[in-house]
């Protein structure tokens, strides 16, 4: 018999970026709010103090900030004819666990999606014709436009103190910024980061080739200090090189811990409960309304938390799994194409190249997670796809994020895999190169989806999510095109050699690619084509909202954090102004 907690107005499942944003936005309504986080409580001090923040064994090799797979993982297969097997060790993507979620171990790459990304199908059909899009692709429009989201992008950038250079101010193209971006109402809150030698070499070469390089938007603090609109102060980035996979020691990389959570926690009507693992959403017998959630606390006690409003703010896979195990909506069937829950899972299509420079030191260990110079000429629909036979694209980024030696050492082609030759190459070539990455979109396709595994279960006896995924033909054509562009720029830098690294095809769960997994509870204009509306409200259960990248209909060629945060801010505004006064369907 589960323990029953006192009734509250709102329960939030997951205390990463979206959960923390919702706690911050709703706390000043005076409503009773409980935030449930499956992992541990943590804060900059003491958890990420120097020097222990700079520990590659603990945070990278042993992955202490990542999801503990012994409790919960996902099963995986490339296609529906295979038997899925558990992801037993972390690899291709790294979900977070603990207060702040993956928002603690991100790099701070703070992108807006392009206006055309939100109208992907209709735009491409209009420009290239219906038959141009591979019929295998189940891509669709988002149901909202860039202009509707712009104020919320702006809000999140000012909360994080994002550094960068505007490329489009109210429709006027600005020199030195991204000329392809959608119009923004004002410039970034802080100037662009310093750029290391590698990114500067890249920018010179790209410019010579006629591209328009610009500094990557970065939530790594570029100035001595910054106080955000909530009065929270961020510290200066010291280019220590420990961003992605690490907690920031200096309050410089924006995370829920140094932006929205301290504000939410000032309110006595917000209660945070860590080590609380939610196992399902409880529904009324007619399945039309949520009653609250059941979770397992640190002592193993099953606990029911009744609530009038349930916000699922867990990582993409967990949101989708909670919908499936709770019997919300109709599970997607790739055979018939019916059902919305689990549909349109997408990832990201990346490729890396490493130019090596004999006799030069990159000092690439002096980096920041989002330091880098970017070329956006081949992203989205910024170029004519007509001759190429695919849609979408990606940005090309030259970056030095830290060159931490265990994870990030890349040695030239021909280096022996061990022995004296390996050591000599390590000595001679460590820090003689940097990464040029093609960071590409990923198109939803019919077979790719998430459902429940028939065999494997988590530590609490619940079925694991089962992921069926492989790259679409469109993705691979796009990747080849982007790699050719990367090589052109790399060659223009006259390196001693270039090493190209392509993730395996078919998609493999083994090598790290990106943590940007999306979809499965996608947003759209109607219940016939989506799981949630554009305010992230479930079409099936109106007092349930599903936040995060699970709402992306397919993935664009950018990092997802700014977009998923903006969607949450937009949802929060609608909740406060319309839903709370009159609960019910917003659309």
């Amino acid at each position: 018999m589960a323990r029953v907690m006192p009734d509250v107005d709102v329960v939030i499942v997951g205390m990463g970026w979206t959960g923390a944003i919702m706690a911050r936005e709703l706390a000043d309504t005076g409503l009773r709010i409980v935030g449930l986080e499956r992992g541990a409580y943590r804060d900059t001090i003491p958890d990420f103090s120097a020097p222990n923040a700079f520990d590659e064994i603990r945070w990278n090799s042993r992955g202490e900030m990542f999801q503990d797979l012994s409790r919960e993982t996902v099963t995986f297969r490339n296609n529906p004819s295979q038997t899925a097997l558990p992801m037993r060790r972390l690899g291709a993507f790294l979900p977070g666990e603990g207060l702040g979620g993956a928002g603690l171990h991100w790099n701070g790459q703070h992108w807006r999606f392009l206006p055309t990304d939100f109208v992907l199908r209709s735009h491409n059909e209009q420009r290239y014709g219906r038959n141009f899009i591979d019929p295998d692709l189940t891509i669709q429009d988002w149901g909202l436009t860039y202009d509707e989201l712009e104020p919320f992008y702006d809000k999140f950038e000012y909360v994080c103190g994002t550094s960068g250079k505007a490329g489009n101010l109210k429709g006027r193209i600005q020199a030195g910024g991204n000329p392809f971006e959608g119009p923004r109402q004002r410039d970034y809150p802080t100037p662009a980061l310093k750029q290391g030698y590698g990114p500067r070499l890249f920018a010179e070469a790209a410019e010579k080739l006629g591209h328009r390089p610009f500094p990557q938007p970065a939530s790594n603090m570029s100035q001595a200090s910054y106080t955000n609109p909530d009065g929270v102060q961020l510290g200066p980035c010291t280019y220590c090189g420990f961003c992605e996979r690490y907690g920031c020691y200096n309050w410089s990389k924006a995370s829920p811990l140094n932006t929205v959570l301290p504000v939410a926690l000032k309110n006595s009507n917000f209660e945070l409960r860590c080590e609380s693992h939610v196992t399902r959403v409880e529904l009324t017998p007619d399945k039309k309304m949520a009653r609250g959630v059941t979770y397992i606390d640190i002592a193993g006690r099953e606990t029911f938390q009744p609530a009038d409003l349930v916000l699922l703010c867990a990582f993409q896979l967990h949101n989708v799994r909670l919908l499936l195990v709770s019997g919300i909506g109709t599970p997607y069937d790739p055979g018939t194409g019916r059902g919305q829950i689990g549909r349109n899972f997408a990832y990201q299509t990346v490729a890396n190249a490493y130019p090596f420079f004999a006799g030069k030191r990159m000092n690439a260990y002096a980096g920041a997670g989002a330091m880098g110079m970017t070329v956006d000429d081949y992203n989205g629909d910024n170029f004519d796809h007509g001759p190429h036979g695919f849609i979408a694209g990606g940005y090309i980024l030259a970056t030095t994020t830290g060159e931490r030696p265990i994870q990030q050492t890349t040695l030239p082609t021909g280096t022996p895999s061990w022995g004296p030759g390996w050591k000599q190459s390590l000595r001679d070539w460590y820090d003689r190169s940097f990464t040029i990455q093609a960071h590409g979109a990923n198109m939803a396709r019919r077979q790719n989806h998430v459902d429940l595994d028939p065999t494997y279960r988590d530590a609490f006896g619940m079925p694991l999510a089962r992921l069926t995924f492989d790259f679409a033909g469109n993705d691979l054509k796009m990747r080849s095109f982007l790699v050719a562009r990367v090589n052109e720029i790399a060659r223009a830098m006259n390196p001693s050699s270039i090493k190209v690294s392509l993730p395996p095809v078919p998609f493999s769960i083994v090598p790290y690619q990106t943590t940007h997994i999306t979809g499965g509870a996608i947003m759209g204009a109607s219940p016939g084509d989506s799981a949630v509306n554009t305010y992230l409200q479930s079409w099936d259960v109106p007092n349930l909202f599903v936040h995060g990248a699970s709402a992306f209909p397919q993935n664009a060629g950018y990092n997802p954090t700014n977009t998923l945060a903006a969607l949450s801010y937009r949802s929060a505004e609608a909740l406060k102004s319309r839903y709370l006064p009159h609960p019910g369907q917003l659309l």
Partner: protein
Amino acid sequence: MSEPIDELKGAETITSRRKFLLAGAASALALEGAAAQTAPAPQQDKPSGPSVQRGPSPGPQGYRFLNNAEVETLTAIVDRLIPADDVGPGGVEAGVLVFIDRELSGQFGSAARWYMSGPWAQGTPSQGWQLALTPRQMYRTSLLALERLCIGEEGKRFAQLSAAQQDGLLHQLEDGKMDLDGVSSADFFQTLWQNVVEGYLGDPLYGGNRNMEAWRMIHFPGANPVLTAAVDLNGTLFQIEPVAIGK
């Protein structure tokens, strides 16, 4: 794409020489000039029981997981994977064995954060690691199987074989050509090599990378929090003394 610089060609020469040796023309003489020359004398000439360990002391507590035989074999293996020479510290001298012992006796060794529930199946390469053994079990099983194989085929323990024979066996392990009592040798080698690199390049806090010698060799500044000045350099070396969390 232009040619790599001369140092790399040197490295390739060693690889080619290895391939030559593996092709069946093994000769201790041929290897002399490559790697073995500066390595401290290994124990291959001493046929008696597991011998005295080299490298840093594991501390007053001794080894926590590894037994004497495993220490002997791993010392010989790590001596081949990262030999001591004038390029930089050897893996054994850097404390890689102490690192591996500490990791195996802790959470990593018990696969504490891996999903370890059955049923177990082989799967496709895309589906990744599907081995029911913890790293502790895998090291113990694989090292014992390797010893038995060496004794069965050569009448000697791994540590007693010539450097060329040891390299040949390590290449076979790496290529997955051996079955180590149910463990694919490629799985074992991959884990071992990853742990060797971790012990060599990780913070001295964990028992490896003694005196930060490996960091000094590559000019990695370690746990230095403020590197702002290095960002502005144009291809020249930033002079900075490395800092470690541990001693």
